[in-house]
């Protein structure tokens, strides 16, 4: 379930954290699902066990996973992430939006830039908060 891109500039433990968070958000990992053991991750990726322990520690601290001594590591009952019910629906509409953007001739890089701009644009963020307040 894990992949590591050494040399990407993102620390390896953070790559592991992000992959679990993403899978939980998308509902690929559900509350109560068991994660692989540290040893399994170490063997499949050839990464340092301290790195995997650090990633699991970080995920536990974030309330995404729970570790039960002697049993294993599991996705928490209510992981502190965006609602897993909403995310797949949003992903569907985003996929359609991306399809439109591609048809209009935008490259993957340009699409990412648009998304970054939309996320970082303070004016829009205020709009959204205002809309939240009104709703």
């Amino acid at each position, binding site marked *: 379930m894990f992949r590591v891109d*050494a*040399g*990407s*500039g993102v620390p390896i433990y953070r790559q592991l954290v992000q992959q679990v968070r993403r899978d939980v958000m998308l509902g690929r990992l559900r509350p109560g699902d068991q994660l692989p053991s540290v*040893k399994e991750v*170490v063997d499949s990726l050839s*990464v340092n066990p*301290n*790195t995997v322990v650090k990633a699991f520690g970080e995920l536990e601290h974030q309330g995404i996973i729970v570790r039960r001594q002697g049993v294993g590591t599991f996705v928490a009952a209510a992981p502190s992430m965006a609602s897993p019910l909403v995310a797949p629906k949003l992903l569907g509409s985003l996929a359609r939006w991306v399809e439109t953007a591609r048809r209009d001739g935008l490259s993957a890089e340009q699409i990412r830039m648009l998304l970054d701009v939309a996320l970082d644009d303070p004016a829009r963020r205020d709009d959204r908060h205002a809309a939240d307040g009104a709703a």
Partner: protein
Amino acid sequence: MSAALRCAGLGHRYGRHLWGLRDCNLDVPTGRVVALVGPNGSGKTTLMSMAAGLLPVTTGTVQAAGGAPAQRLDRIGFVAQDAPLWPRLRVADVLDIGRCMNRAFDTVMAADRIRGLGIRPRARIGALSGGERAQVALTLVLAKKPELFLLDEPMANLDPLARREFLGSMFEACSQAGATVLYSSHAVAELERICDYLIVLRAGQVRLAGDIDELRQRHRVIRGPDGWPDGGGWQVISQRSMAGQTIALVRCGNHCVPGPGLEAGAPAFDELVLGYLDGDAARLPEEVPA
């Protein structure tokens, strides 16, 4: 946490004038996998040899696996570069010697590992390939079950599958027994996966030592129009200029806020290592506390 390797003012001088290593201060916590990086002749092997008790100390002190190396030989496992073993001996003889000379030697594990690798116990060391010879040496050191592994370019002769297999065994020794590994290599690209602690040596001196994630947080790669590196709350480690732009690795103080027009990010692992290998030696900090 106790230190697996502690050096204070450690130095070794070859002959009258040539310092292989000088004024080396290190405090490597137990359980870490340490990348030991530096150009040829920078002191990696000298440091490992002193930690293994094989080379006398000229100045300072070294403690390995909790004591003076000479008193801790059964807890230290050293594999020298190119895995030197007697070429006339058979593989089984080498394992026998390992068993006789080490109290806690895991004979079963050693025999299983050699069989699993498809190496004939009757074969003479001199008839093995470089990779097979390395595997025999690594099997010896794994079966010894040391607290401190000193591995001088251990995977240089291994193919990719053998690398993965050896790393699995080494990581198991770390997580099961809490062993510490000092691991020297020139293959910077693979060190990021393997190690969580970094020591950069250059010209016989420690230039950088510490937890890799913490080191990355304390450094920045900054890019901007030529001339920007002068001034600012940072120390420039290395810099390059191209087409009017300067890109540099800098070490930050507590606050490091690049001015307008500068792009800054945390360095990738190889940018950090290469920055310290590449930088103007005169400019480098004498020593960075771990």
